[in-house]
């Protein structure tokens, strides 16, 4: 870390050399900040400022200061509360299901039986697919009239032909299941890394002491991968807060707002209805939620990351 300073001491031209070196450091940062400042950093301020205006977009002359109007509208908008509730449901259910599933499979795979390397490689594959492909593919698989699942139900002699994505009671849960299908592999590999960091002699010692599988899970594995679990939970939470692509491709928030979440509500309001101010207010809520989770992540992730690398 000190290498430039150290070098400059040797050459005994500290001041001029130091300025030259500083200039070199700054010049390397210029390209990064050139794009980072307007497109990332400024967004934080802009999204909050824009929450207080009324604007249909496109021409700056039509911007009007709206005070708290957008937030009053937010509070009185039943669809907003619905989408917030769906987002929270999404987070709670997917986080629990995905974390438990990923940990369970990671433990099974870490028994190092033959073929498990190959199997875990396949489990990761959906992670590299695009959400658009996954959305269209499962939209077809679960299509009520020509879909495979209902065809299978018919072959099995079932009278029930669910409408799946067309059924407000099922649609959101189906999308949660598909999200888990696509993303559990990532969580699983984080758990695998955490499990591999546990010293093997701990298991041997436990077995010598006569511990059964449940004891080992309860008293060795779970306490030792606590930090990894926190990392997985936070990561999944952030991903679920941001869920958009899959819903947009499959249902666009319908039927009857049954799959409307914060991100889709924000998008429709801003780009389909041209309410830039109101859309920004929803985005601010989304940002605050993500921010809180990210701050928690920063606090706990240091130890968790050490478990990975």
């Amino acid at each position, binding site marked *: 870390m000190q290498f430039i300073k150290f070098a400059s001491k040797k050459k005994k031209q500290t001041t001029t050399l130091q300025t030259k070196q500083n200039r070199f450091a700054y010049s390397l940062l210029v390209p990064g900040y050139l794009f980072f400042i307007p497109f990332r950093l400024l967004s934080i301020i802009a999204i909050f400022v824009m929450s207080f205006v009324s604007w249909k977009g496109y021409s700056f002359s039509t911007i009007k200061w709206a005070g708290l109007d957008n937030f009053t509208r937010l509070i009185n908008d039943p669809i907003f509360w619905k989408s917030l509730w769906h987002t929270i449901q999404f987070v709670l259910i997917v986080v629990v299901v995905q974390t438990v599933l990923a940990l369970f499979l990671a433990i099974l*795979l870490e028994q190092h039986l033959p073929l498990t390397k190959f199997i875990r490689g396949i489990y990761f594959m959906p992670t590299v697919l695009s959400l658009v492909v996954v959305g269209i593919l499962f939209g077809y698989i679960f299509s009520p009239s020509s879909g495979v699942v209902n065809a299978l139900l018919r072959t099995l002699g079932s009278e029930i032909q669910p409408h799946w994505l067309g059924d407000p009671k099922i649609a959101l849960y189906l999308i949660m299941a598909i999200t888990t299908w696509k993303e559990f592999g990532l969580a699983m590999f984080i758990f695998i890394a955490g499990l591999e960091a546990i010293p093997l002699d701990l298991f041997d010692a436990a077995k010598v002491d006569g511990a059964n599988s449940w004891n080992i899970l309860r008293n060795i594995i779970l306490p030792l991968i606590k930090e990894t679990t926190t990392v997985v939970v936070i990561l999944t939470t952030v991903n679920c807060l941001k869920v958009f692509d899959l819903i947009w491709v499959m249902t666009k928030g319908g039927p009857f707002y049954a799959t409307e979440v914060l991100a889709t509500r924000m998008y429709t309001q801003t780009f389909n209805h041209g309410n830039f101010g109101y859309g920004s207010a929803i985005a601010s809520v989304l940002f605050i939620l993500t921010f809180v989770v990210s701050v928690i992540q920063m606090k706990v992730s240091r130890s968790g990351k050490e478990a990975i690398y």
Partner: protein
Amino acid sequence: MYKVGRVLKHALIYFILLVVFVLVLYPVIWMFINSLKPTWEILTNPFSLPTTFTLENYITAWNIANFGRVFLNTVGLLAISLSGILIISCMGGYVFGKLEFPGKNFLFYFWLAGMMVPPHVSLIPNFVIIDYLGLIDNYLSLILVYFGSATFGVFVMRSFFMSVPTEILEAALIDGCSESGVFWRIAVPLAKGGLTTIAIFYFVFLWNDYMYPMTFLRSDSKNTISIALTAFRDVYITNWGSLLAALSLASLPPIIFYFIFQRQFIRGLTAGALKG
């Protein structure tokens, strides 16, 4: 007795792993198999192997959805964006990981703050800037935004350069190499491992991105793969064969790359998930 228990336990483990294996793999395999059947056969017999093997679907998808053009668009956009991201990440990572200069911590905290902004939140402000610059329906809009998303890359490269021994760089400096020479000739070649990690992470991110191209691009001739797929789906909703062929075409590049560079993919994407 002990042995029987062990066999049973292993059998149970394999059974569970196999069920998940089928659930994960089957939809993808099903997509590839059925893309080789005519649509009527998909509808009458969705589970069988093709009896009438045909590449007709691929030809239709390629011609109607203009997939040649779409691929070219996506690959070109990806190549430019990725090169920019790699250069920015390499330079930023080196500066934050290896150099000492006034204001370093201050600048780095800014970078950290930027990493916390989800792309959904910056979408509206970015759209306003892009529209103001008159770049709607121009690839430059996406390139600028993607360059701005290099925050994660800088982060990875920073920790990577921190692990490069300072002595190597010092030695080069004492031997009369200039600061920029040390960076370009010594540090960058040492950074290949880190660059692979972020290249893979951004490849998957850029190839699959949907929200930004959908918002910024307008004309059909500029479609990237994600938009082309949804547009194709909306028009040819009943032509399942061609639709499945289009999906297969779009998924082949990431899947093939994944099976070739499996280790790097898993490392790159888990690192991305943890820091991005």
